């Protein structure tokens, strides 16, 4: 990848201003908590099915 190609690439890689990133993350806490709860539901299903799913071929 040349420097020219890199400069041509988008300069807006991040959703937040990187100088205010920590404040941005703080503002996303409730969203993170929602995602964590969704993940917990999936983890419960993983363990329930993982106890009875046979691997034997």
């Amino acid at each position: 990848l040349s420097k020219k190609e890199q400069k041509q690439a988008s300069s807006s890689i991040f959703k937040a201003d990187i100088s205010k990133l920590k404040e941005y993350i703080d503002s996303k806490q409730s969203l993170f908590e929602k995602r964590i709860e969704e993940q917990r539901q999936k983890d419960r299903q993983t363990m329930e099915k993982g106890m009875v799913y046979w691997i034997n071929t």
Partner: protein
Amino acid sequence: MLFKVFHDLEALEKEIGASNMENLKQRFSNYLGITRTYILEEKYIDKEWREEYSIVYSFTSYEDITPLTKRLHLFNEKFDDIKKAKKDSYLGYIVFRPVPSNRILKAILKPVKDAFKVGKDEQMFMPLCKFTTHIGSEEFSIDAFPFYCQDSMVTVCAHASMFMACLYMFKRHWGNRPTLKDFVKLTPTMFGRNTPSEALTPAQMLSILASIGYNVRLTSFKPLERKDTLECLTEIDTFVESALPPLLMYGDHVVLVVGHSLSREGKKEYIIFDDSSYHLQKLIGSTLFAFKVPSDILQKELEKQEWVFIGNFEFDRQYFPLKSVKILTDELIQTSLRKRIILAESKDIKVQLREALGIIEDFNFPHYLWLIEAYEKNILVGGVLLDASVHKYDYKGSLVALWNNQNVKFYKYNDTLIKTGATLVPFTNLREITN
């Protein structure tokens, strides 16, 4: 004679028998095609066979079952005297069980592009560890990924994939050497006795692996219901690129995804080790021990599944899991960009990315880091470094650095901003196979 030299399969078949030859051709024809000299070791003491023998076969009345195995060494050059063999012509070895069926016990074979039908203009990447072999007084070393095949008595595919993965982990990263004896002893009993083994569940597999000291996280996907096949493939990619081969379980069978090839156009084919070839036969009609599977074919197969499980090895002192990385980076990186996520030792990142990221020698990095690269139209445009040792919900505390068009901001080190002016380079934990 302890060792016999052969140059053709007909002569070899007279020595090893028709059944072994049939198994050899079924599972390793890709290596037979590039072999010029075979050396047969008639009485080889194999550690895994001794375990299987001690667990069950020593108590049976089968005739001809002995504590000794046959080991076949492969070389890609022709010679008559082992002392004249060139060290780099050694391809590795295959061990046969002295049993009526399921005769292939294991294989340690150097990955070669020709054997996997990877073209000269394509790239091939695999995680490898070192194996040293002695034939008489001659020593040979190769870098390989280990293969073990179930006997269907002591072990089934679940044991086989765990054994391959753990032997690699033990040799390449850390951990205890896996033993079949431990696998059997540590199996939580569900149906009375554990031998003959009928099956293992993913939960049993994780329990065994945890008991011998490995950290493995189980995740599941429900492609038919949740349409999450791409998420599943992302997870496979993450751990393959991290040189932590994932255990991929679906359709009652488990395989290991241990690497990939890449064409010039960016088409990816996964290198899959399949102890019984059950999935390889369905995916690409192959009975080989390992082969490449185009990513679109694997994707289509996974899309048909009600359940897919992935068992992922994690490092000691790594507490920030992939699911936390996904939650955080989904909010950090623009949705339009493709993410490549890798778990790596910070020492490797320092070596490979020192110039690209302007890493200063006295930055005190944690032992393990998550590296997230962002791509726009296949061009690497930036990324994120996260501390893998922080609490699973400490999103802010995980931030080590962000980089964007040659500017790198290190958050953990006094908010240092470095203008590197260097070209960004992709990181890899895998070894490129060039031969």
